[in-house]
């Protein structure tokens, strides 16, 4: 191990050269570490995105087939007939391991009896599409009420609530245990206007004229952005009442018992959405029902993350390759300068591999110091670089999403209600009919989540990876530079 001792003496004696090499190697490793940190952070963030962003799959009536059937019908009185989803089937599908939670939704309209609905500027009572097109399913009645009754299995699984657009400010939300009860959650503005508080009872009348007494168990606040729409009264988010889906079915009529307009399944892993859809389709009649996925939030987070990861990967390899070349050139020059030393070593009978090992040992010692410097500096470079990348990527994604949203906004699936207005199925309905509002919301959420999730902390694993890169860089550099050593003849060096 004499070459180790020689390496140490050389590194110690040649301070200027050691410092120069340390700085060069530190700079190379710093950028490699920045790349590794961003890459790791993007991978972790993508994993986290699966957890946080989630994806939903909606089971509902197959509208496309229903319209086809309607158009091909020779009957004069054309009426769109949509099948209701069986809760039993939905529960069977929900027993899949892909499912984290699910929400059964049924929407209908009713009229306020013991209180006044919030009135909006101009109402167009001829518009029959309820939020998300759900009122289409209330085929038992042609008239619409001034309230939207959004029957859900639990408000916590409704996207408006889970995304934070709607917040329970008083009392509680609807729970699965509320099934079969007349419990209701109403909007804060509606409660304020009518002096309703948690514990109060309110009366409503179904469109068929039946009166119902409801108990207010909670009050929610809709975000300000959601209440800017104009249109029918029930389209105002303040006029949306959340009840158990069983109550909404009761309002619609006895034949709707045990059914739902749609069921939204929250997936535990968005990447498995297609597998789940395949599984769900095997359990339903696809002529009558359709299964559609909405992983836009996940995708909107994944796209910039994948771009960042790809960019970081390129940084790592480009810097590693460039670093190897730069370092190899420096070492070649260093070796030229040390030809006599190599000649003396060879004349003493030192083996060539030990001469090469000495250079490697010198670089290894320098690398240890460089690793520490890179470890400190890499975090800052990585952090600054990732912020810049996140900023660029989210801007690009938002622009792309906005453009896509606008182009799909006019889809004719009815509704036109603001996001969340339709209750639990707001995400799919927002995507297909509600324009780009939901997608933009998802994009802004993903942007903030992305920034917070892309953490570039230096950990042992990153440093170990950097050490591996560092070793590879110096090994390759020494090998490239050593081609010269292998060709050196001591006689030619020492005796001229």
């Amino acid at each position, binding site marked *: 191990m*004499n070459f180790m001792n020689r390496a140490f*003496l050389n590194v110690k*004696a040649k301070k200027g050269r050691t410092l120069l090499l340390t700085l060069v190697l530190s700079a190379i490793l710093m950028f490699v570490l920045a790349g590794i940190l961003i890459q790791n952070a993007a991978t972790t963030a993508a994993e986290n995105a699966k957890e946080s962003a989630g994806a939903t799959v909606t089971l509902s009536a197959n509208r496309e087939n229903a319209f086809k059937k309607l158009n091909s019908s020779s009957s004069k009185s054309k009426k769109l007939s949509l099948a209701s989803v069986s809760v039993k089937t939905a529960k069977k599908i929900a027993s899949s391991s892909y499912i984290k939670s699910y929400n059964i939704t049924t929407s209908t309209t009713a009229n306020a009896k013991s209180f006044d609905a919030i009135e909006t500027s101009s109402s167009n009572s001829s518009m029959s599409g309820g939020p998300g097109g759900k009122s289409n399913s209330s085929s038992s009645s042609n008239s619409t009420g001034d309230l939207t009754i959004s029957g859900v299995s639990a408000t916590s699984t409704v996207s408006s609530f889970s995304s934070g657009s709607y917040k329970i400010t008083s009392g509680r939300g609807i729970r699965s245990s509320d099934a079969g009860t007349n419990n209701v959650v109403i909007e804060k503005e509606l409660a304020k206007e009518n002096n309703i508080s948690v514990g109060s009872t309110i009366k409503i009348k179904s469109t068929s004229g039946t009166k119902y007494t409801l108990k207010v168990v909670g009050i929610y606040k809709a975000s300000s952005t959601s209440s800017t729409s104009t249109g029918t009264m029930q389209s105002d988010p303040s006029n949306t009442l959340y009840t158990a889906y069983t109550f909404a079915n009761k309002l619609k009529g006895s034949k709707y018992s045990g059914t739902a307009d749609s069921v939204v399944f929250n997936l535990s892993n968005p990447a498995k959405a297609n597998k789940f859809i395949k599984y769900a389709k095997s359990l339903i009649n696809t002529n009558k029902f359709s299964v559609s996925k909405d992983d836009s939030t996940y995708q909107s987070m994944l796209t910039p993350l994948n771009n960042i990861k790809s960019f970081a990967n390129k940084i790592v390899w480009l810097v590693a390759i460039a670093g190897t070349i730069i370092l190899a050139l420096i070492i070649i020059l260093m070796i030229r300068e040390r030809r006599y030393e190599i*000649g*003396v070593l060879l004349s*003493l*009978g030192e083996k060539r591999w030990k001469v090469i090992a000495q250079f490697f040992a010198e670089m290894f010692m320098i690398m240890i110091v460089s690793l520490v410097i890179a470890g400190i500096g890499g975090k800052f470079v990585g952090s600054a670089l990732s912020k810049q990348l996140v900023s660029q990527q989210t801007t690009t994604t938002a622009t792309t999403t906005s453009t896509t949203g606008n182009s799909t906004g006019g889809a004719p699936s009815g509704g036109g209600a603001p996001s969340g207005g339709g209750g639990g199925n707001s995400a799919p309905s927002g995507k297909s009919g509600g324009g780009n509002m939901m997608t933009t919301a998802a994009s802004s959420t993903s942007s903030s989540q992305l920034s917070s999730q892309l953490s570039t902390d230096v950990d042992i694993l990153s440093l170990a990876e950097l050490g591996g890169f560092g070793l590879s860089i110096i090994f390759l550099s020494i090998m490239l530079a050593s081609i010269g050593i292998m060709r050196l003849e001591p006689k030619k060096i020492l005796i001229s």
Partner: protein
Amino acid sequence: MLETKDIGYWYDHQANALYRNVNLQFAEGKTYAIVGSSGSGKTTFLSLIAGLDKPSEGEVLYNGRAINKIGLTNYRNKYVSIVFQSYNLFTYMSALDNVLTAMAITNSQHKGDKEYAIDMLSKIGIDQDMAKKNVQRLSGGQQQRVAIVRAMCCDAKVVVADEPTGNLDETNTRETIELFQELAHAQGKCVIIVTHEPEVAKMCDETIELKNKEFTTKSAIKA
């Protein structure tokens, strides 16, 4: 101990050979001076017997074995020490580290023995403090003496030196040659010195002159 058997050397064409059919024998316990005019090929001859290069024809034998068969690196490592005109010390080391490093590389029987190295250096007038200073802070004469001690400490039986006094003054030249004589006479080594200085040649036991591509052995004329 060391023998050349019909060796010849040329760079490009056999017709332009520096010399051919050289048969010389070198015994242990003696100092040899190889003299000749500049460009005659005496340094090349030294590189052949030192195992730094291979002859174009013939072979160099060490104790009857061809050095090619021993392996040139192995031969240089175990059986021969070289002293150069320009000292060729490791400039980033102290005199002591230079000696210790050479001892470690050549597997000297005193490998790692710092006291032995300091003792050997003190014999040539380099005290402990000086021995620990970087070699570049020593004079030319002192550096050459360090180079000789480095060769001495390697336990090699053959010591070859290429113009070892070329950069030294008269006093240092005499002291250096005396060191070589001590190596041969006291330690029983075979010392072969290439020189163009007649005074140095006179101090050696035998002189071999390279003239007109021929080696001629002459008895030493002792002063």
